[in-house]
């Protein structure tokens, strides 16, 4: 069984309102505390500087800005995250090849399962 997401703090970064709202609603149903959502790269970086979320859900293209700086920061701080994106995996820089990637349109159940797996991995 994957770890429960109850009480976890999860940053949601997605520029499309309807997708962001679905993510928020889906996570809130799991008793997750959602940080965001935001569709703005700078706002997301700001949110991250004041918080340490348990995990993050990242869109790759944020209003035509790529979310790599955010991904780098998350990796640096060892915060697990996954991508939800319309891009194929070849588009990902080498450094993010191991990051789980959910293709849009994604299933909320799969997303929750993947997130649970990420937060359930104990720190080595």
């Amino acid at each position: 069984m994957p770890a429960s997401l109850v009480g976890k703090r999860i940053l949601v970064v997605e520029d499309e309102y309807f997708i962001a709202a679905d993510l928020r609603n889906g996570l809130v149903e799991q008793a997750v505390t959602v940080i965001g959502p935001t569709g703005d790269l700078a706002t997301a970086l700001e949110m991250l500087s004041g918080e340490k979320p348990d995990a993050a859900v990242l869109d790759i293209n944020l209003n035509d800005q790529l979310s790599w700086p955010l991904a780098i920061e998350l990796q640096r701080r060892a915060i697990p995250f996954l991508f939800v994106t319309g891009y194929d995996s070849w588009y990902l820089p080498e450094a993010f090849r191991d990051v789980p990637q959910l293709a849009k349109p994604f299933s909320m159940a799969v997303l929750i399962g993947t997130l649970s797996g990420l937060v359930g991995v104990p720190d080595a």
Partner: protein
Amino acid sequence: MAENGEIARLRALLACSEADLQRANAQIAALEASELRYRAMFDGIDEGLCVIEMIEDEAGQPIDYRFLQANAAFVRQTGLKDAMGRTVRDMVPGHEQHWFDIYGRIARTGIAERFEDRVEALGRWYDVYAMPFGAPGDLQVAVLFRDVLDRKQTEMRLVESENRLAAIFESAPVGIALADRNGNMLLANAEAQRLFPSRRIPSHDPEFGPRWRAVSDDGEPVALSDYPAIKALNGISTVPGMEFTWTDEDGAVHWATVSSVPLRDDGGTISGSVIVIHEVDELKRSQEALRESERRLQMLLAELQHRVRNILTVIRSVFSRTVETGGDIQSIANHFTGRLDNLARAQMVATQSAHGYADLENLIRDELLSVGVSDGETVTICGPGIELNAQLTESLGLAFHELTTNALKYGALRFPEARLEIHWEVNLDDKGICSLDLTWSEQGVPVISSQPTRRGFGCELIEDALPYRSGVTTSLEFRGGGVFCLLSAPQSEGGAGAAWKEL
């Protein structure tokens, strides 16, 4: 006894005379034998041999000569029969003057000459050795000659072939050079001289050499020992060539492929290298252009995938929300189809215009037209010319759709006496930021009890999605008399340019 003495003396004399006669006869016989031998030799030699006597005009200029003697080969070498005693002008009318000049000179100076020349009239080339003959005043010349037309023709063919090869060598669009073991060019065509102005090959040239750099497939530096011309000296050919870049005087970088094979002397020892340089700028440029275009295409495809998958996700989300709003299946279907059509229209206008911007007024009119409404007495549409970027087109398009649908069902477009005014203007806010302010204002709608009881899709779209997605400030009021909606879009610079532009 005197008589006897006389007889004896006469006898002795006779005996002497006989002896002399015998001796003379023997001498004559010997001479005749020698003459025959020489004659046989004269006729037996393969080369033409003749003795000529020069004929001069009154001014002492040689103008002709007469054949005095000729050997058997003379006929074979000239084709002239029965020449003895006749003059050459008589036999060969077109004989060139320079023959007379040369023989005349030999006869006068007494100095033999060797030369080669052509007799056009006979169609022959002669290798000639001519020497003065007889006494100086005789003006006689002995001429030993051989027809060398075949050799001459072979030589000329060789020269012609060499000239042809030289022309090809010179005009070849590739640089071709032969270099010795020290890298000095022994032979270089024009292109090779252009590429190697110092007439030294780059691997041996401290001055121009550093301008040339071999390019390996993996981008690693190439050791000088692996340069084609150096390898050729070790007996290794580099064909087809190795890629090089070289920098010209103006600093422009060019691409070339350099091939090289060993150059061997007669003994088979490597004496240098043959180098062929082919500039491939054009090829490189088109390769790069192709790669660039491929890369762009790939990015475009990625963008397309991103957009398609995004819009599919949005559509799925819109569908869920439409279903959640409730109603019978027909009304859900109608609502969803309307929203989908609207999204499709926004997509279409955004992709149809080359720059991805869409006209605001057209966006509104198209939406109203899709439900059969055009402006007139009850509907006014008015504002300056504005173009919206793709994202704002999609967001505002959806908002106009929801407002129109609502107005049809509950508002200004349902009641004939009601009025709808859509108006926009550009204002500068207190922070100096341009803002596109649009009002959707309905008047004269009877107060009806069926105010929306729960927050529907339209409200969420206008109140939440627009601010979130496009930074649009919104307010939506259900006033007495109809809906009043205010949409303010800042002219922010996004990644894809300004959200909107004034025309």
